[in-house]
């Protein structure tokens, strides 16, 4: 127990430090995930098994993923500058938080010194076994004594989802093209009138940033996702093609005249 506590404690504190002081936001998210997992272990070590699993599934799994998604939307490269714009804020914050820490720890230790349950916590053995397990115990409380809070919380969740949908909604600027419109567009364009080749026909590599090469050796721009096109990270595949071709020719020289024709 003690060893578990100390390891998990140290790791979670390390994770917290890492989260607070990382320059890149994605690193902060990962450090936080570390902290959360350690906290889940601590929950389990205190006979709160249900809560530990929920911590991993909901918090680390859902909430942190949500954070990462938003980080991706906002810009995964975004990093804070180290320069503090508000004068004296850094020092004052460190001082205030240290004072708060000292105060809380002192209060807690002072208060806990006299309490019997500090030296001899009651423990959840009986509470867990009363209903036949931790989950059942929590369920009894949740749908028994706290059912009203439960219902209200579910209303809150629905509201949150609705709020998120409203906030994230973007109106269409143009109407969605219907099927007739799409067909017309395709048929009117000679390049696509006969239908585009299936995926993989001209592909040279299965990485998403490697474009396909057309029969005459030029890069097929449609084969790259638009975002990668804009960013200009298309991987130039012609070198590999040359290497592969050389290897093929070395294996079978009769193919050389097919290239020149």
């Amino acid at each position, binding site marked *: *127990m*003690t060893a578990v*506590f100390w390891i998990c*404690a140290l790791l*979670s*504190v390390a994770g*917290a430090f890492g*989260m*607070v002081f990382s320059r890149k*936001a994605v690193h*902060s998210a990962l450090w*936080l995930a570390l*902290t*959360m997992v350690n*906290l889940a272990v*601590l*929950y389990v070590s*205190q006979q*709160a098994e*249900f*809560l530990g699993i*929920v*911590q991993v599934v*909901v*918090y680390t799994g*859902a909430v942190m993923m*949500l*954070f990462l998604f938003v980080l991706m939307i*906002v*810009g995964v490269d*975004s990093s*804070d*500058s180290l320069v503090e714009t*508000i004068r004296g*804020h850094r020092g004052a914050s460190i001082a205030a938080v*240290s004072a708060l*820490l000292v105060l*809380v*720890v002192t209060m*807690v*230790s002072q208060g*806990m010194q006299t309490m019997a*349950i*500090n030296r001899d*916590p*009651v*423990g*959840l053995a*009986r*509470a*867990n076994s009363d209903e036949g397990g931790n989950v059942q*115990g*929590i369920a009894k409380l949740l749908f028994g004594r*706290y059912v009203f809070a439960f219902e209200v919380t579910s209303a*809150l*969740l629905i509201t*949150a989802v609705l*709020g998120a949908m409203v*906030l*994230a909604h973007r109106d269409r600027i143009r109407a969605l093209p219907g099927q007739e419109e799409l067909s017309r567009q395709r048929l009117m364009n000679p390049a696509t009138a006969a239908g585009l080749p299936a995926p993989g026909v001209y592909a040279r590599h299965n990485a998403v940033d490697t474009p396909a090469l057309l029969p005459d050796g030029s890069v097929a721009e449609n084969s790259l996702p638009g975002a990668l096109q804009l960013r200009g990270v298309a991987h130039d595949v012609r070198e590999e093609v040359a290497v592969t071709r050389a290897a093929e020719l070395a294996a079978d020289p009769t193919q050389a005249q097919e290239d020149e024709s």
Partner: protein
Amino acid sequence: MNPSAYLALAAVLFCLGATGVLLRRNAIVMFMSVELMLNAANLALVTASRMHGNLDGQVFAFFSMVVAAAEVVVGLAIIVQIFRSRRSASIDDASLLKF
């Protein structure tokens, strides 16, 4: 391990979260620091549940998690909206409520 150690750990995590709120300018990292503070509170609740020997603390922590999740959803949606209109995720840009 006696519960006061857990509570001390909870205090440390809480304060680290507070530091993150105060010092980081990126809105999302700030939000993550708030999540850390909430987790520290949950730890304290679970410890208290063990101290008193009933599951009320755990139910409380459960509700706290649910509410935190809802809050994250709405908060991040707001951040995304702000980012769309301002193109910047720094909270110092929203400084119009001043003298």
